[in-house]
């Protein structure tokens, strides 16, 4: 507990730097990942990451020792090679991008395993810290490593800020960008480079297998909350940074599991799961695009349709009498589409809304209800008339078609309908263009 306190209050200088490093990295990855996801380039990062392993090994062969910048340089070179491999295969052969990515992942990583085992077999060989690159172990970073990563992340963030306009334009509409004279290919390459650098910088903290999550998950999560790119970038950076911070703190503070060979909790999976948790919350609870919001919208629409159908049935039942304030019974309204599974609920809801009044098993439309019913019936019949006159549909079919659409017609479309049908309908509720279903007199 005191260790947690020390961490949170950032008392230990080394921890402070490591935390800053992973958080900055999360921010950078969120920014770059947003563009990668929008450009449908999300999984290139996976190929780049897996290709980093042989790069690390070659760097070890060349430098002969554990050197953090050399490792990152080697990983970056190999990652760029893998990205180029995917691009060449995609452009010059019939093999599609997905297969090229999968081959790069499996092939390069296999090569990496081969090389790392050769390193291991050398008399002086240890894993040279390679293991921490595969699953990510931020805690094994030293202060200078973390400072380096912080600097890289800061640079990435600055470049994204600088190229914001150019990236946005090229990712959204490449043809238009070219027509305007922008070097779309160069901007695209810049984005690829950012993806590569970001992926490689994330390796020490998150590891080869999972670093792509840092690019993808915060960006996808952020997309749920907003329809504006700046907000999306901000949120993705926030989610990425928070995941990096939280994952590192958890990895350092959780009591190590009691295994013989246990080496404590790996950072990578914890960072990824923090991001996943944020994603899950976004997926469910985001107000615009979230699943719950969608569900609520659907339920609301269904209820509105049920009430509107009830009002329309009542209106059409009362229409022949000319007295819309008269009493009617539920049974009078027949079995229209409104009254399926729970026949009483629309009545209860309409009453709660003050649209109908009930007394002794009978209902009456209130004044408000009569107005609403007239509006509904008018929309329905306008739409029917439009279908008959302008869409050439037989009158006995229009009821069903009108039924589906009338509830979602926005006011401006209704106005357009009226304009179209000008002169063909009197003001107020037009007469039904077809025989009404169910006898109104029964």
């Amino acid at each position, binding site marked *: 507990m005191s260790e947690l306190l020390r961490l949170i209050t950032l008392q230990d200088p080394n921890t402070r730097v490591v935390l800053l490093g992973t958080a900055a990295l999360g921010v950078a990855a969120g920014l770059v990942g947003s563009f990668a996801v929008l450009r449908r380039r999300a999984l290139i990062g996976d190929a780049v990451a897996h290709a980093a392993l042989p790069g690390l090994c070659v760097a070890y062969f060349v430098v002969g020792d554990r050197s953090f910048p050399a490792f990152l340089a080697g990983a970056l070179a190999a990652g760029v090679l893998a990205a180029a491999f995917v691009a060449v295969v995609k452009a010059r052969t019939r093999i599609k991008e997905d297969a090229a990515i999968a081959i790069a992942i499996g092939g390069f990583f296999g090569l990496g395993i081969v090389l790392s085992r050769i390193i291991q077999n050398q008399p002086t060989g240890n894993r040279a810290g390679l293991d921490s690159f595969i699953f990510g172990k931020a805690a094994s970073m030293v202060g200078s490593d973390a400072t380096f990563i912080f600097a890289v992340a800061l640079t990435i963030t600055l470049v994204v800020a600088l190229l914001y306009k150019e990236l946005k334009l090229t990712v959204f509409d490449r043809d238009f960008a070219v027509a305007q*004279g922008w070097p779309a290919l160069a901007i695209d390459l810049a984005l690829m480079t950012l993806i590569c650098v970001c992926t490689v910088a994330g390796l020490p903290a998150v590891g080869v297998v999972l670093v792509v999550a840092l690019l993808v998950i915060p960006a996808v999560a952020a997309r749920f909350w907003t329809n504006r790119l700046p907000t999306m970038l901000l949120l993705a950076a926030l989610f990425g940074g928070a995941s990096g911070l939280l994952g590192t703190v958890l990895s350092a503070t959780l009591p190590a599991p009691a295994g013989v060979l246990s080496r404590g909790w790996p950072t990578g999976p914890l960072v990824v799961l923090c991001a996943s948790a944020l994603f899950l919350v976004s997926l469910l609870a985001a107000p615009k695009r979230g699943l719950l919001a969608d569900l609520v919208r659907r339920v609301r629409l269904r209820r509105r349709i049920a009430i509107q159908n009830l009002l329309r049935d009542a209106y059409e039942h009362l229409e022949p009498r000319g007295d819309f304030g008269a009493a009617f019974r539920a049974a009078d309204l027949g079995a229209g589409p409104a009254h399926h599974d729970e026949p009483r609920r629309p009545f209860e809801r309409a009453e709660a809304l003050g649209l109908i009044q009930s007394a002794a098993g009978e209902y009456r439309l209130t004044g408000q209800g009569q107005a609403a019913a007239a509006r509904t019936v008018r929309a329905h019949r306008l739409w029917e008339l439009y279908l008959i006159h302008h869409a050439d549909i037989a009158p006995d079919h229009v009821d069903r078609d009108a039924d589906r659409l009338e509830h979602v017609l926005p006011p401006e479309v209704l106005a357009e309908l009226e304009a179209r049908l000008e002169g063909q309908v009197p003001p107020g509720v037009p007469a039904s263009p077809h025989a009404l279903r169910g006898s109104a007199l029964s």
Partner: protein
Amino acid sequence: MTNVMPSQSNAAPLPPDTAGGISVEVHDLTVAYDRKPVLWDVDLALPTAKLIAIVGPNGAGKSTLLKAVLGLVPIASGWVSVFGSPLKAARRRVGYVPQRETVDWDFPVDALDVVLMGRYGRLGWFRRPSRADREAARHALDRVGMADLAHRQISQLSGGQQQRVFLARALAQDADLYFMDEPFAGVDAATERAIVVVLQDLRSKGRTVVAVHHDLQTVPEYFDHVALLNMRLVAAGPVASTFTRENLQKTYGGRLTLLDEAAEAVRRGSPG
């Protein structure tokens, strides 16, 4: 088949009413997709300050012609000039309305953002749009009747509204020459009217519009000039003299089978 070629497809001499100058000149343009030529040796000179329709059946190479002129697809042979200079030198004077399906409409931007992209060309590297650019974008949206929807996310716009946003973006470019790839495709009647008004307004200001167009019935009503295309240029010139039954029959009356066969032979004969 052996009659002498129609004089309209000749680049020179120009019809008399083009004395105002040439906006686009296309010389011996051949464009190939996947090594197979889809446009053969097109020669074309278009006037300025006119509304010009490019008309032809599906697969005739209409969009390809626009894209080749704009440098979006590689040219197999021939050259293109815009206002008498290579396209590169005239980029600022050219506006573009791509087909609606070419972009991801779920992209997180609103209508105003998209229109603002029309100003990026003149902004250059790294500079952010200024208040004046914003004003210009708003004004462009207003011209297409979309001022109220400036902050609506683009996926929540109807097809016609999306098309108007694209048109507004081109207007924000404030160009002298506009290329529009099927601006009327899949739009409602109100949008079609709005677009026509904008096009006529552009013409009255001396701007030139070259549009790929599908609806033959509206060609005489909307456009001054027409270029009939089917893998090769069939005819080009003022609507009154060019948009004739005979030329349309030549354009739509089946493709030249030998041209198709030769295209296939070129594809097979060339390495990829």
